[in-house]
Structure formats: C-alpha cells, structure tokens
C-alpha cells in the first residue's frame, strides 16, 4: 500500500525536542509528496486519545505516535492497529502495546557519555548536582540511569543534591540551579537532563559568584542551545538526531505500509557535543 | 415674592419610560423651582423612583425632554447630572460596607490636594455633615455593621455635601425614627434657604404637611393631581393616590386569648447589643417593640428567630424550650422572621418572584422532595394575588418597586402558616393603601391565633397595631405598656431613659 497521508500525534509541541521532530517529519514528508496531519496533545494523554480518534476519522495511511504524558498510553496504538494502520512509536513505547517499530535516542548511553565527559573535565572528582526532568517520565528515568553509571565509575564524584523540574524549562533550571548552588556552594559538576535546564543552570552558575569552575552538562542538542554551547556557554550535551528521527519515522511508515517488517527497536545514538564540535551541528542539525 | 413666581430650574415635558414591553411613565410634566420642596407621592410602583432616576441621569428616558435653568438637559450618566448640579439619594441604595464612612460620603468625588487624596478634609467634612444629622460616629469607621438607620443617615450626608442645586430624596426617612427625621427636615430648611430645589418622595404622609411646598401625585405612571401648597389634609392626598377614599388606616385590634404562645426568658446577645430581655406573647396577640434607632430591636428579634446567636436565656414556645440555633430551627418550630432589609435578607433580587416565594416553602410545594415548575408557580401565583403584588410571577424581584418587593417578602413567609410571626419594619417604604392592607393582614394573623411581633420605628404604627408594646433603650428592656397606657409620650419617655 502506498502512503499518502500520515497522522502525526505529538506529545507536546511546546518542547523544542518534539517540535524539531515534527519539523523533521513534515519537511521530509513534503519531499516525498506525503501529506502530514499534526496534532498536539499538550502533554495530556486523554487529549491525545481523542486526537488519534480524529486522525483515524481522516483515513490516514500510517500513524507516527509520540506518546504524551509521563508515560505512553497503550490505547492510541491499539486503536490504530484495529483500524489496520501501521504504527511508528517515537521516543516512548507503551508497555503491553508496542508500535510496529520504535524509534528513539539511546538516552541511557548518551547521558552516560555526557556525564563521563564533564566528570573527565573536572578531573574525575568533585561534588555534583543533578537537575532532573519531569519526574517519572521515561527520558528522566533513562538519563538518570545513564549518568548514575558514570558517577559510580568515578569514586571521587559525590552526588550531593538533586531536584526535579516539572516542565524541563529554562526558568526552572535557573531557579533550581540558584537554590541548589546556595545550599551547596562548593559543587563543580552539574548534570541537567535537558538543554533548557542546562542553560538555566549555567546562568545560575554565572550569577552565583562561586569561585571554582563548574562544569555543566545538558542533553538534547536544541538548535537554540548549540550556538551557546559553541561559545562555551556550557560544557557538553548529547545532540539527538531529531531530524534523523523524523526521517526515519517517515521511512519506517512507508516500509511498514508496504508490508515490510522492521526491528522492534531502532535506537539512534545521540552525539556527544562539546564547544569544539558544536559548530558542525549548528551548521547542519542531524 | 413666592417661589411659585420664579421660573423653574428644572422642567420635564412628556417624559416616557418603557421597560421591555411595559410603559411605566406615560408622559410626565413637572417643574421645580429654586428653594421649594416638591413632594412626589404615589402608590408603590407609581413610577416615582423611575422619574427621579431619569432626572439624575441613572436611567435614560424613552421619550420626552427636560430643561435645566432654561437649557436643554439630557444627562447620559449620573456623573453628567452631578456635574450639572443635580444630586439624588436613591431609594435603599447600598453603601460600600468595606470602606470608611468618609469614603462612602465622598465616593466618586474624592477631595484631593496636589493630586493625592485629602483624607483629613474628607473626614472632617463627613463628620460635620453627620453631626448635623445627629450622628456622632467616627468617619473612619467602616460602614460594615452599622444599623440600617445609620447607613441611611450617611446616605443623606452624602447628598447634603454635594452642593447640588437640585436634590432628589427618594424615601430618605423610610429607615429613620422621628428624631432623625426632624434633624433631616432642619437640613432641608437650610437648603431651601440657600435656594436649592428639592424633590421629596415619601410614603409617610404626615411628614409631607410639614415639609412640602407643593405636592405632585402620581398613579400608575401618570401625574394625576397637583396641589399648589403642602398642608393638604392627608385624607385628600390618599384619595388622589389610591383613587378612592380610605376610611381608616388601622383596623380594630382583636382580643388575644389567654394562653401564652411564646415566652422569652432572660435573653442576652453575645455582643451585648441586648441583654436580659423577658416577655411573653399570647396566642392571637400583636406585640409591638418600640425604641430609638440602634436600641437593639433588630438584634433581639433576629436572635429569637435563630438568625443570630444567643448567649444566655431561653425561647419557649407553647411551654417547650426551643431556643433556636439556626433559622431552620426556628422555622421548624413555626417561628418566622420577615427581615428588616428586604434587599439583603429578604429576596434574591435576580430571581423571579415565584422562586423567591418558593425558597421558604419547598416543603409545601414539593412532594417527597420533588418540585415541578407548575406546582411552584401555582403556589406562588395564589400568594401573588392574595397579597396584591403588582408583578408577574416570572418577573425578577429586583424589577419590582420597593413596596411590591415587601409584599413578596411577606407572601414568602406567611405562606408557611407559621405560629409566630416576627415582622421587622414591615411597612418600610410601603404606600398607604398597601400599608393598610398589611395591617389588615396582621390582624387577620392575630385572629387566627398566631402570635405576632411587630418591630417598627414608626411610632404611630406600633401604637396602632399592638395589644402591648415593649420599649427598648440601649439594649435593655425599658418597660412594657398595655395598649391603653401607650401613647407618644409614654413610649418616648421609656425609650430615652
């Protein structure tokens, strides 16, 4: 079967990461002459179920599903499969109802690399704070796991405080950063689980007036964060292949519709990005 | 030279007002001259307030013209009228309870000095204005918690400090006692001497003879008669107002039975507004409570009916102690209160007459908790008719004239077939015709063996309807007079000790 119309259900367009995937999907589909109908659940699973119903009403040929909420709901996948439409899950997979294929960044590995890198910069030791994403969400859990592995490998590193943000936002990164630095003025390492949080944390370091060098690591490789990284605004991030994920999602949809079977999981590595190589990713975002 | 020879400062020609499909003013002509008091009289709903609101810019006329000092006059807002020099005290207008007295007096025309509010000047002038009316309270006190009478005096002080060329007073004395009324009249005389024209609206016809220079009588939205002087016999005015002669005001008072229905024993309020009150009311008796403004009468009857807390003492009904802790307690025992302030306590103004009557009568209207609109409106319509309310059941209570609102409140409570009825200022703002019918109602209640308590600041009224009168002074029970011994002098003596 040929794919003419793809339904794209996005978790939350207010997050740059998802917005980039959306842009990637839309741009690539346009090249291929495929129509994309995008809906934004604003991070609410219930809204998303309704939106998937509406997408199915419009006779889509394939469905790209970025689950909303803290965790993936199974129902959208099920609804689409009942309608005989191939499902490509992106970023999160629902327990018990996986998509026909699942595309994501390898969060744990990439977070491990970011943390290992900044710990290396600090000479393998020092006090560290972690600013988490929204508590309980898959990326938060995975990135925590990856970074903890790097911390455990370095006995000189002590995780002295951690706090969770609710919206992965820069304003939260700033406030949390300020407060944690207040409580622990002697830290030299910060891992923030998103670039927004990292930018906020870097800002907090700048204004807190601590004398020692504090190394800040982020995650995502946001288009707005990379130029700042290039100028040394913070120290490292993992650039996710957002456009690549978008392209891969569209290709997978086409293949699934044509009857091909794809691997259950297609994990794309995130590229460890530092001020040295950031320019490359600014010029062309993967 | 008499006032009548001067050119009018205000002239109305063919003023009409239509609300929805109803014309409530049918082409009114009116002239007011400098330094004269024109009394505007008429039954409830005659259109007095509507006409006044048109003059003061609060309401726009549907047709007709006005002139002010010879020039065309069509105020689009109250502000425009105020700026032209027309001031008005609205009937039962509420003050702003959260603000100080001084701010209420100067609301909308705050005195300023160098761009900032001049609190001191406002307070001094408000205080002076209040003192002229015999009210000695701090102008900085919040209005919240002041008695209705005091609030009315503040309302008047607000108008007196306006420096208006024409002042409209819409039932300014409805909430006042005799003494305050005399103080008000003294101020009116002063304004007259300054050449201020005054339109004076009241249902207390005895006042009119004392204060009015001319009398204009309205009926059903039309001007029906004009008297060129003020000292017209009350009987003549009443005939013009109601369109027939009214032979008597007070019906004969029935003889009560001997058994005691309600007994109040040593009742005191937690805040001390009244203390140690003892009295009994017999079956079929009308028990009046008199006193000066602020004597604590309202608080007392509210406590008896469960609306306010009781500190010590008992309320005994038919020999059983039932001291109510909430209005529903009292109502269950057949004690109802027709409250003093119908707008705040008696009616939901945005709801229909039918619904308002229903609110106190769900048990009568419902079957096993179920109510149908049909049954409700039938029930209400019966009472609307019985009490002669000028209005349709589905009309909002707020659209009724003040007097008709009072009739709705009465209907709401009397529909319950109570055993004890407490009426706090039952005829406030009610026209003579309606008033006499309310007196008839009271006597009818008494004849049915109901115990009736009537609180009133209108001395003539308490004297006219009561079998016995308790006089209160400063929260204490000053004495109880039998009907034979009660007259102006004996009551006032007790009230002022």
């Amino acid at each position, binding site marked *: 079967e040929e794919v003419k119309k793809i339904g794209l259900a996005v978790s939350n367009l207010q997050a740059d990461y998802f917005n980039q995937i959306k842009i990637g999907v839309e741009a690539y589909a346009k090249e291929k002459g495929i129509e994309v109908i995008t809906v934004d659940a604003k991070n609410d699973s219930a809204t998303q179920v309704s939106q998937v119903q509406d997408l199915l009403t419009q006779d889509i040929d394939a469905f790209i599903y970025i689950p909303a909420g803290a965790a993936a709901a*199974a129902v959208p996948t099920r609804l689409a499969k009942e309608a005989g439409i191939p499902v490509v899950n992106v970023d999160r997979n629902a327990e018990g109802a996986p998509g026909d294929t699942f595309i994501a960044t390898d969060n744990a590995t990439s977070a491990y690399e970011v943390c290992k890198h900044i710990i290396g910069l600090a000479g393998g030791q020092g006090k560290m704070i972690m600013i988490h994403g929204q508590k309980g969400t898959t990326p938060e859990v995975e990135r925590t796991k990856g970074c903890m592995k790097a911390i455990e490998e370095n006995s000189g590193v002590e995780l002295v405080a951690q706090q969770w943000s609710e919206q992965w936002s820069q304003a939260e990164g700033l406030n949390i950063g300020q407060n944690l630095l207040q409580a622990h003025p002697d830290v030299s390492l910060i891992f923030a689980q998103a670039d927004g949080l990292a930018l906020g944390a870097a800002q907090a370091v700048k204004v807190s007036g601590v004398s020692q060098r504090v190394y800040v690591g982020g995650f995502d490789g946001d288009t707005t964060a990379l130029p700042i990284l290039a100028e040394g605004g913070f120290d490292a991030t993992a650039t996710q292949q957002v456009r690549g994920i978008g392209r891969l999602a569209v290709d997978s949809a086409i293949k699934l519709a044509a009857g091909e079977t794809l691997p259950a999981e297609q994990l794309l590595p995130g590229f460890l990005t530092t001020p040295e190589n950031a320019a490359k990713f600014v010029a062309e975002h993967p | 030279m008499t006032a009548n020879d001067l050119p009018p400062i205000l002239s109305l020609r063919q003023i009409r007002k239509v609300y929805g499909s109803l014309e409530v003013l049918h082409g009114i002509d009116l002239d007011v001259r400098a330094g004269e008091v024109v009394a505007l009289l008429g039954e409830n709903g005659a259109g007095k307030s509507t006409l006044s609101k048109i003059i003061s810019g609060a309401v726009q006329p549907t047709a007709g013209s006005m002139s002010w000092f010879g020039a065309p006059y069509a105020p689009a807002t109250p502000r425009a009228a105020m700026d032209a020099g027309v001031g008005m005290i609205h009937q039962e207008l509420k003050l702003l309870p959260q603000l100080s007295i001084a701010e209420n007096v100067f609301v909308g025309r705050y005195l300023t000095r160098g761009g900032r509010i001049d609190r001191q000047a406002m307070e001094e002038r408000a205080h002076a204005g209040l003192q002229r009316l015999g009210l000695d309270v701090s102008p900085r006190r919040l209005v919240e918690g002041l008695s209705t009478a005091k609030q009315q005096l503040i309302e008047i002080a607000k108008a007196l400090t306006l420096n208006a060329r024409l002042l409209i007073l819409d039932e300014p004395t409805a909430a006042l006692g005799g003494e305050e009324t005399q103080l008000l009249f003294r101020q009116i005389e002063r304004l007259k001497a300054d050449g201020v024209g005054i339109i004076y609206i009241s249902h207390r016809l005895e006042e009119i003879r004392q204060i009015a220079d001319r009398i204009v009588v309205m009926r059903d939205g039309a001007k029906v008669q004009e008297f060129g002087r003020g000292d017209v016999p009350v009987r003549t005015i009443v005939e013009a107002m109601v369109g027939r002669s009214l032979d008597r005001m007070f019906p004969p008072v029935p003889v009560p039975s001997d058994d005691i229905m309600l007994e109040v024993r040593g009742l005191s309020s937690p805040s001390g507004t009244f203390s140690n009150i003892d009295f009994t009311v017999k079956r079929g008796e009308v028990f009046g409570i008199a006193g000066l403004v602020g004597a604590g009468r309202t608080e007392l009857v509210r406590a008896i009916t469960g609306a306010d807390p009781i500190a010590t003492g008992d309320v005994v009904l038919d020999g059983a102690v039932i001291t109510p802790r909430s209005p529903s307690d009292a109502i269950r025992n057949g004690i109802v209160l027709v409250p003093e302030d119908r707008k705040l306590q008696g009616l939901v103004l945005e709801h229909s007459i039918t619904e308002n009557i229903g609110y106190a009568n769900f048990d009568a209207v419902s079957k096993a908790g179920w109510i149908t609109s049909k049954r409700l409106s039938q029930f209400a319509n019966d009472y609307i008719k019985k009490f002669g309310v000028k209005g349709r059941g589905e009309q909002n209570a707020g659209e009724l004239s003040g007097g008709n609102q009072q009739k709705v409140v009465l209907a709401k409570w009397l529909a319950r077939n109570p055993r004890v009825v407490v009426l706090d200022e039952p005829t406030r703002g009610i026209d003579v015709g309606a008033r006499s019918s309310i007196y008839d109602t009271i006597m009818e209640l008494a004849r049915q063996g109901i115990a009736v308590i009537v609180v009133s600041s209108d001395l003539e009224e308490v004297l006219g309807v009561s079998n016995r009168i308790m006089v209160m002074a400063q929260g204490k029970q000053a004495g109880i007079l039998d009907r034979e011994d009660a007259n102006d002098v004996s009551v006032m003596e007790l009230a002022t000790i």
Partner: protein
Amino acid sequence: MSISATDQERGAGASAMAALRGTTGPLIGLILLCIFLSFATDKFMSARNLLNILDQVTVLGIMAVGMTMVILIGGIDLAVGSVLALTMMVMGYLANQVGLPLPVGILLALGVAAATGAVSGILITALGVPAFIATLAMMSVARGLANMITDGQQIVGFPSWFSLLAYTRYGGFLTLTVAVMLVVFVLGWLYLRYTSGGRSLYAIGGNQEVARLAGINVNLYTIGVYVVSGLLAGLAGVVLAMRLDSVQPTAGVSYELDTIAAVVIGGTSLSGGKGGILGTIIGVLIIGVLRNGLNLLGVSPFTQAVVIGVVIALAVAAEAIKRK
C-alpha cells in the same frame, strides 16, 4: 383566576425558560459551528465521528456537572483535575499493587475523591477559607499525593474488560463511558430542576443570607456540593482510566479551566444563582466539537489555540449582547 393563558405557560416554564434563556447564544453558536464544519469537511457529519465526539467529551462532561453545581452556589472548584488523577492512581494502586478486585478498588478510590471534596467544603464553610484558595490548595495536595503513590510512574495492566467498556459500542451506539455521562447529565438535570435540594442551590447562589434565613442549611449544602464535585471528578478519572487503559499521576492537568469554561460558556454565572445543566451540556459540546473540528480540518495546533479563544469569546458575547 386572573392569570392569562400566556402567563400560565410562561410561569410553568419559568425556570425552564430561565435555564434556556441564558443559553440560546451558545446554542446558536454550537449549531453554526456544526453547520460550518459539515460544509468544511465531509468527515464531520458521519455517525462515527459524532460518536467519537461523545466519547471525547465524557471526562469533561462528567466533571462539568459537578462544577455546574459548585458554580451555581457561587463557588469554584480548581481541584477537579488533580482529584481525577488522584482517584486514578488510588484505583490503580489498590487494584494492581495491593491486589484488590478492580471494582472494589474503584469504589474505594471514589470514596477518596468524595473525601477530597469534603475537605475542601469544610475548609470553606467551617474555616472560612475562600473557595478559590481552598480548592487551589486541594489541587496542589491531590496532585502531590497522586504522584507520591508510585513516585510519578504510571500503572498499567488492567483486566481487558476494563478498557473495552470505553470502546465497545453497545447497540452499535453507546459505550459504557458515554452512557455513564448521559446518566450523570440526566441525574444532574433532574436534581437541579425538580428537587427542593436543587432549588436550594439556586437560592444559596443568589444570596446566602436570604437562603439561610429561609431555613436552608447553607453549610451542609455547600459541603455536599463539593463532595459531589469531587466524586464526579473521581468518576471522570475512572472513565479516563478506561479510555487510556492505564493510570498516570499527570492526568487532568489544567482540566479545571476547561471544565469551568464549559460551564460558563453554557451560561452559568460565576457569581452564582443562575444557570443549569442544559447550558453546561451545550458548553461541553462546543468545546468538544471545536477541538474535533479543528483536528479534522488539519488546523495547526498553534492556530487552533487562537481559533478556540475567538470562538469562545464570540459564543459568550453573542449571548451577552442578545440579553441587552
């Protein structure tokens, strides 16, 4: 009797009229919207899509009935979204982690939902906390508790009949969840229109003091109304769990605004004493149809926000202007 036939008629329907009187604007808005959408996209007027819309508004519709009562007495309930989440999590926890039978878990969770309403109601009546603050506090507390149960994780693995209730169309038409909503609508409508309790709510909203002096137990009704609102938010949570086949502590964020909007668009006055269920149903449908239609039209999410805002303002303005 001197009452004419028209009067009789008008009288009989006094409050029916009153209920509809405030809603003709929104009703016309809803109809215009449907006409427009059925021309703009041929998918809109299909039976399947209309049933979908009903499915999609169940959660909102159920909560809106409780909110209507709360707003009628002049209150507000900001906690509904959080209570919905808390109920889901308690249900999931009891059923899938403690191991109680699911129906028992549901009943206990609904008990918790009702209890949150009781706490808000008591804060309001006994301690004199304004409803806005009391329910805002409850919103925060309930959300926190919902998250604490599983440390922010979702719970899955309900029996398969559970989710099917939200998707099997009995008689080719009604899912159980839609049926639940319709029952709640009817009960709410009957209560408000035909019982002395319902009428008392109008009196309380119109003027608390008048209601109290008329012998209505204002405090009791107030607490009762918040309990019902909490309970219905909980029921909406159960329905949502069926729709999602999972429970998550992040569910229902900002639903309180949607719910209040539906109620107010339907003509119920935020100052209390005026409005009713019929209007609320129209309000719920306007929101549901609007969202569905914009999705069908493929309007971009950012533009959707603008359109929704404009339509809401217009629907309510039409009513307000008409009344003048």
